[in-house]
């Protein structure tokens, strides 16, 4: 009875969720098999998937997306945690001033993309400054940071956006941590490093895990930054999806839908395995 009540009271929230998200997922899945594709008909339900895997481009894009998302997220987590820890260790009166770090949080991703273009492109602000200071003879000498095959522009932009998020999350949990534990450890002769890794890190680990998942999935499936920055080939997977959905013949839409289905399934599997793995790790840590 209680259960039914809970479900009933959640219904106003559940219904739109099921209808919009569930319906969208269902149509995406069906269209990836060439079904419900308006007046188009396909002989082979696996046509889109076969097409995708007949070529290495899809895999190259997927690997590139993975690489960008993983690198950016890992670096953000390390820097963000470090900064949050340092701020937390400051005397209390400085904490409110450290609020500046939250600025990138309120910038939209696409805004960060434009800032990157304005600042670091070959004819951008930094290039002009270098020219005025006689560091370079013309804008052509300015190093190429945008649209590189290594995705440096994308990774930098994501780090800029994600680090403050990590800081907010970590700082919030640290404020519940008892500082005296560290002081005690110090008195007993533990080094700074040692007390961070054995006392603080296990305490904030669950939050780091959640943050990692949020940021990784977000940047893996992000569209706006790769659209403004980023290279034409291989390019992040979301850009390929956009091309197939909006710019190519409508009869090829199942390919876009197949990519979306694969990205979504991958994200689900990733979250599931990661959570399972990390909770097992945490249990083992507790046993120690």
């Amino acid at each position, binding site marked *: 009875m209680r259960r039914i009540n809970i479900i009933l009271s959640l219904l106003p929230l559940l219904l739109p969720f099921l209808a919009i998200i569930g319906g969208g997922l269902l149509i995406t899945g069906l269209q990836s098999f060439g079904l*419900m594709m*308006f*007046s*188009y008909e396909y002989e082979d339900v696996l046509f889109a998937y076969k097409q995708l895997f007949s070529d290495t*481009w899809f895999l190259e894009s997927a690997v590139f997306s993975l690489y960008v998302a993983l690198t950016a997220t890992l670096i953000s987590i390390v820097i963000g945690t470090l900064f949050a820890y340092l701020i937390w260790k400051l005397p209390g009166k400085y904490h409110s001033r450290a609020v500046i770090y939250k600025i990138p949080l309120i910038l939209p991703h696409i805004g960060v993309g434009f800032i990157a*273009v304005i600042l670091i*492109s*070959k*004819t951008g602000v930094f290039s002009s400054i270098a020219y005025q200071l006689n560091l370079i003879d013309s*804008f*052509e000498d300015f190093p*190429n940071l945008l*649209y590189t*095959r290594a995705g440096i522009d994308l990774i930098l932009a994501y780090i800029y956006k994600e680090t403050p998020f990590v800081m907010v999350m970590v700082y919030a949990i640290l404020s519940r941590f008892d500082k005296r534990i560290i002081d005690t450890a110090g008195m007993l002769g533990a080094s700074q490093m040692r007390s961070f890794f054995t006392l603080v890190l296990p305490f904030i680990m669950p939050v780091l895990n959640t943050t990692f998942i949020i940021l990784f999935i977000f940047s893996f499936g992000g569209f706006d930054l790769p*659209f403004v920055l980023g*290279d*034409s*080939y291989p390019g992040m997977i979301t*850009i390929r999806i956009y*091309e197939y959905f*909006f*710019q*190519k*013949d*409508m009869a090829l839409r199942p390919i876009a839908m197949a990519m979306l289905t694969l990205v979504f399934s991958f994200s689900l599997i990733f979250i599931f395995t990661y959570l399972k793995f990390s909770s097992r790790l945490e249990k083992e840590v507790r046993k120690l």
Partner: protein
Amino acid sequence: MPRFLFKQMKIILRLITAIMVLFCWANLSQADESFDKLVQESRGTTVKWFMWGGSPTINSWVDTYVSEEVKQRYDITLKRVPADAAIFVNKLLTEKQTGRKRGTMDLLWINGENFKNAMENELLFGPITSKLPSFQYVDPATVEFDFGYPVQGYEAPYGRAQFVFEYDSGNLPEPPQSFAALKSWVKENPGKFTYPSPPDFTGSAFIRQAFYALTGGHEQYMQGLDQELYQQNAPKLWEYLNEIKPYLWQKGRTYPKDIAALDTLFERGEVALNMSYHQANAQSKILQGRYKNSVRTFVIEDGSIFNTHFTAVPFNAPNKAGALVVANFLLSPEAQLHKNNPENWGDFTALDLDRLDPKMQSRFQKLDLGEATLSLSALAEAAVPEIPSGYLELLERDWEKFVLRSK
């Protein structure tokens, strides 16, 4: 120019279309009478026009001139809804799939691939051109096909655009005027040229033009896709594009994602040549202060592609009468003249000037198109039609394979 202006299709039976067009002509006298009825019906109604909203110039032309005129003449309230054509065609598809009889859109600005997609899924109401008195000023032969797809009266022409190159006459007095000259110029000026990566419409039009120029002209392709001919000719295009690739912007490792990205590079002087699928784009950019006053345009001697853009009415438009009245007004000589003026927009007319009365003709001829825009005759001399869609799809696909991904 709108994303949806460009892309193309299969040629089906020319004959059927020709008959259709003749039929429309025979019906013109009836058109006037039934048009009065439409005007009566649409008095006091609202027309929602879904159109690409990316150009402030075009938006303000619609919001001021067009909406004031239709209000005054027909008591119609015009509401402009900005949306990309691919997006509203999607919306229509969903409405069709869910069986929605009364939709939300009355009039669409559409052409090319989006028109093809809409026709293949029976999303349009029509034929409509026979209902529009202004259509008598159009040469039906010029609007028989939209990117190779038969129009069959399902969309009414409304403007015309042609592909031009843009350059700054201040620092590049003699731009390369043929594809052969372009190749040597690019090699002498490494890093100063690039094109948006297809399927961007401008980049895609650029490679189509090169395809015409390098393989002996457009005539051979007009009959629809011939696989053998394509396989025989396309390698010449890939060879050319790969030859200039190392000398392109960023050494050809990457290409601007769309024309807006290339525009930015040109505005800042990172590249010395730009391109546009709208002949008056440079002039309006100068008027907006984004280009230097010394920017000029030219067409490549080998031929420059043009296409027509259209208005159409969705199958479930709630106010079909009002939509037709507005479409007719947009095609009227007065509106076309006003639109052709670069101060208002600069989009070329879809009308056949020979069909207008002499007074109107001279008003069109007296238009000051601005220094950066080529004369009508210079443009007409180089004009070549768009390629049938079968070729377009192959060219875009193989560009990725043989140019973008080749080492």
